């Protein structure tokens, strides 16, 4: 390839990247400026691309209603609870599938677990509601969503952890047995540290899913427990749409996952490449 055409390809690539960046960052930009506009400014026919007056009090306004902050707490409890449960169950199942495939039910059972995730969730929305309503913990509780989200997160955790465990050499565990460690202690001492980066990325994926979930939360909870995802739409009602408060609140709700990602991105990248790079 000549130098000229190499430069052309490079230029085209940069243009493409630029367009792609604009496409992905525009919603965030729109969220940011809307969050600081006045309600009147958000409703203009010809939109403004920069707030005329910065209304920082919008942020204070959303937390003037204490239940809004409570919704973030509820979301946090549900996401974290579900992540812990997914990791514990998924790791145990993944370990079993990786180390004892035959005794653990083999490929078929592992695939069945994964197939749960392929199911369109909306198809079971109503049956699930009645099923959970009949349970002691009902639908409007932390436990209902923590358990329900396992349907989506546990297969993911099981399969990813299975891959990570397969990559962790069995011989290291055997060496630990011969050092005198029981299987459980060998698992904690040797295997767990090896799969930890992978586990952290699985935790991130699970947590973000549970944090963002709207469809089931909207139907299941709302009185005792409210997640932020079902609070955001309440800023829009019959008489008016408070786009600015809606955007301010969603901006705040975006912070925890972004902060988590920045804190753990080192592990995340290592975790996702664990299966690819050997040694």
């Amino acid at each position: 390839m000549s130098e000229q055409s190499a430069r052309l390809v490079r230029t085209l690539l940069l243009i493409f990247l630029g367009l792609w960046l604009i496409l992905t960052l525009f919603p965030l930009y729109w969220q940011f400026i809307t969050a600081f506009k006045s309600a009147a400014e958000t409703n203009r026919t010809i939109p403004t691309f920069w707030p005329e007056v910065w209304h920082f009090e919008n942020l204070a306004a959303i937390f003037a209603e204490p239940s809004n902050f409570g919704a973030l707490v509820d979301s946090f409890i549900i996401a974290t609870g579900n992540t812990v449960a997914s990791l514990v169950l998924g790791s145990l199942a993944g370990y079993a599938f990786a180390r004892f495939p035959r005794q653990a039910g083999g490929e078929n059972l592992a695939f069945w677990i994964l197939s749960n995730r392929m199911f369109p969730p909306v198809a079971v929305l109503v049956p699930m509601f009645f099923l959970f309503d009949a349970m002691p913990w009902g639908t409007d509780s932390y436990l209902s969503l923590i358990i329900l989200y396992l349907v989506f997160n546990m297969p993911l955790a099981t399969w990813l952890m299975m891959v990570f465990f397969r990559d962790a050499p069995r011989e290291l565990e055997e060496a630990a047995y011969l050092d005198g460690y029981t299987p459980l202690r060998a698992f904690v001492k040797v295997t767990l540290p090896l799969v930890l980066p992978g586990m952290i990325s699985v935790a991130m994926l699970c947590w973000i899913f549970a944090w963002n979930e709207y469809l089931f939360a909207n139907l299941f909870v709302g009185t005792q427990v409210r997640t932020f995802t079902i609070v955001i739409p309440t800023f829009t009602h019959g008489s008016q749409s408070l786009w600015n408060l809606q955007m301010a609140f969603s901006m705040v709700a975006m912070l925890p996952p972004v902060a988590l990602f920045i804190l753990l991105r080192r592990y995340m990248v290592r975790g996702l490449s664990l299966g690819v790079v050997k040694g």
Partner: protein
Amino acid sequence: MARLQIEGLCKGWDFPVIDRLDLTVEEGEFFIVVGPSGIGKTTLLRLIAGLETADAGRIAIGDQDITTLPPYKRPVAMTFESYALYPHLSVFENIASPLRARRLDKAAIRQVVTEVAKLLRIETLLDRRPGEISGGQKQRTALGRTLVAEPQVFLLDEPISHLDAKIRHELRLQFHSLEELRRVATLYVTHDYAEALSLGDRIGVMGHGGLVQIGTARDVFMRPRSLFVAQHLGQPAINAVTAHLTGEGAALHVRAGNSSFGFPVVAAHAAALGRGGYRQVTVGIRPQHVKVLRNGEDAPGHHVIDGHVEIYEALGANGVLVADAGGVNLTALTSLERDFAHRQPVRLALQTDAVFYFHADSGDNLLL
């Protein structure tokens, strides 16, 4: 007290790997299992360690039957062929691992690990990770981890096979001098016959299903029970020539190739062979028993055959010559200062009283 005793051990998957194996390794003995790759040497170690369960048979250490004990309850330490060092832990922590398993206090652990590291000359590496040290150092770390465990039986799986020749020699010397290994029963697996002959008090040659021959290194080398054993010990490998015997009584004669290859059987051998009435045999001649004569040189007590050079390789300590002698390829050891050209005629002197005769089908040594 810490003798390792194996009786009737069986293990197989779709096919039998170990079939009714019996073996006793005494306390303080260094026993070497030698055999080709994939024959089940590692499986034997894994069975003793408890990483595999035996299909049948009994394994005991001292008075204790350990056949069904889980690996972490067996008084056994093992080095893995891959070393199996914990990549996320330092060399210190790797060596300390068996002590941590026993929940020893910090000071005691530090003292023991430092001692062992000094012994193995890796005391300067204790803070490094396994990924940051060389193969020989990894090997010594793995060995250190088994030494601190103070087991009653040591299992060493090809511990030095993957290292380069210089370090291998150094570690071989180290194995000789490790007092710790002299107080327990050690089972050492290798496919390298030189290691086996140099290190072992006794060696066992492993063939299909189990140990084909057990004895002192010298005994097994000098009196192999079968062609398989003879072929496995010695470098270059023994010459195995398919031949038939002619003549009667004490006047037996070996014939092979295009019938110009042959030599008279010495009287002591002829007696043993004549009793069995064997006609078809496999003749085994070690390369060091084939002498390449210089011009005009005489070899009393040897049988001289004419041939010509096929291949000549000058190796480190000696030369290896492959000659065609009457349609039979014979490998001979020569001294290094000599040189040979392709197709050059040579005179080969066979030391006929050092020749082995094996059964043509079973491979059994017919002289034993």
